[in-house]
């Protein structure tokens, strides 16, 4: 930073180099019709997506529109609680607000019957054994703890099935 040249009458005055102006804004999130239906279903231990009437793709969580065709998606589709790891990462770095013990695995999981992966945790398997194509299933919280949030699923774990064929998830990597 270049040195400031002040007029004589201001010389010797301590210069302001920085100041803090904290700002906080609070918002009430609007889920919208489609995502509300999804979250209500999660509270009932169900996973629902929506199918595009044009390209037939099934979106989860649904947002009410097909991002490819720009048309409303209205048909609701019940999805399996199992899926395929399309890609993943091993988290080794501490960050603010972190609750998980390091290292842990965050993965994109393509639920059977859907065309877009959701993000969730992979547990009950050593982190260095998680791989693309791994078949996993949802582990839900106890029924009395279910709520309209994806935290109703504690994590996904291997379901013992052989790895999925690359062809079944190659469009989602």
């Amino acid at each position: 930073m270049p040195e400031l040249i002040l007029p004589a009458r201001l010389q010797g005055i301590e210069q302001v180099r920085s100041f803090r102006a904290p700002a906080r804004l609070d918002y009430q999130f609007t889920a919208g019709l489609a995502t509300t239906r999804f979250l209500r279903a999660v509270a009932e231990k169900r996973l629902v997506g929506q199918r595009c009437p044009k390209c037939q793709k099934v979106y989860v969580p649904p947002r009410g529109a097909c991002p490819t065709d720009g048309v409303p998606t209205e048909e609701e589709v019940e999805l399996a609680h199992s899926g395929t790891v399309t890609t993943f990462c091993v988290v080794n770095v501490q960050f603010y607000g972190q609750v998980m013990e390091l290292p842990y695995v965050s993965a994109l999981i393509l639920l059977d019957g859907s065309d877009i992966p959701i993000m969730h945790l992979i547990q009950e398997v050593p982190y260095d054994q998680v791989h693309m194509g791994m078949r996993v299933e949802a582990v839900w919280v106890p029924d009395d703890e279910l709520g309209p949030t994806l935290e109703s699923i504690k994590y996904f774990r291997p379901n013992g099935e052989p790895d999925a064929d690359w062809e079944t998830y190659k469009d989602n990597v």
Partner: protein
Amino acid sequence: MRDVAIISFAQTQHRRAVRELNEVEMLMPVLVDVVAKAGITKDRIDFVCSGSADYLAGMAFSFVMTLDGVGPWPPISESHVDMDGAWALYEAWVKMQMGDVDVALVYSYGKSSPGNLRRVLTRQLDPYYLAPMWPDPVSLAALQARAALDAGVVTETEMAEVVAASRRAALSNPSAQLRGEVEASSLLSEEYFVAPLRRHDCPPISDGAAAVILAADDVARQLCERPAWIRGIDHRIEPHSLGVRDLTRSVSTEQAATHAGVDKDKIDLAELHAPFSHQEVILRRALGLGDEVAVNPSGGALAANPIMAAGLIRLGEAATRITCGAADRAVAHATSGPCLQQNLVCVLEGE
């Protein structure tokens, strides 16, 4: 210059809070409507430009999510401004001047209900001297109104008359949020909200969206019986610091009006984006509009003020009145920033 016209306009029914819909769900019916009114299919659109602000809903890149409602496949040519949709329209108009775009979709939306709008809008102020004090837009507008009253530029009676005219005009606007038959004299008997502003001198807080279709030259003539041709469009901005501006006039509107050619011919009607009643008086003066000009037949921003869309709506409302033959020459105006900081003026004509 290439001739570009507004050939279609659509908007939501604006409401204080659209609690049941997310932004893309709120916007999508408007996009479907504006395309249908233009008598085209989406594949005719060469360019898409939108205007919005993520601060309103408090969601980063929410404008990207609303592209879900456009259907960006196969890949589309698209742009966005963090400004009112009137400026998105300006960008589309500039792009159309280059000659490779014949049809453009312009849309904008504002969903203010998830947050506290008066606090959110303080974030657009100068971050060192103003924003840390959180002066809200109503208080800043009240400073401007006080300056204008003291300078004799406007009277409280004129302000009340602006509101009464807006409420009355909005009776025939199905998209309006506030409408009714009220007398200026009874408005003047109400308490001050932030003196010298009464509650009715301030715009309602609205959730809403709007869209227009622009078309060039013969494409516009093919698609629309009477296109609303953009004969002049210009926008100007004043300094960030309120202290160095003359708040009792709108110098940027005066300059934009000159460059847009407002005074070249008679004006039939004006749609002015004046969120506060005294600002309509300041704008009429800046644009040189006489009593014979019908101002805000839609009710204006006092009837519904979806932030980021209210300016584009002025262009759409003015264009609609040309398209249906009710007017031959109209001026549409949009504003942004505190106390009319930035202003866009557009002259629309029928053939």
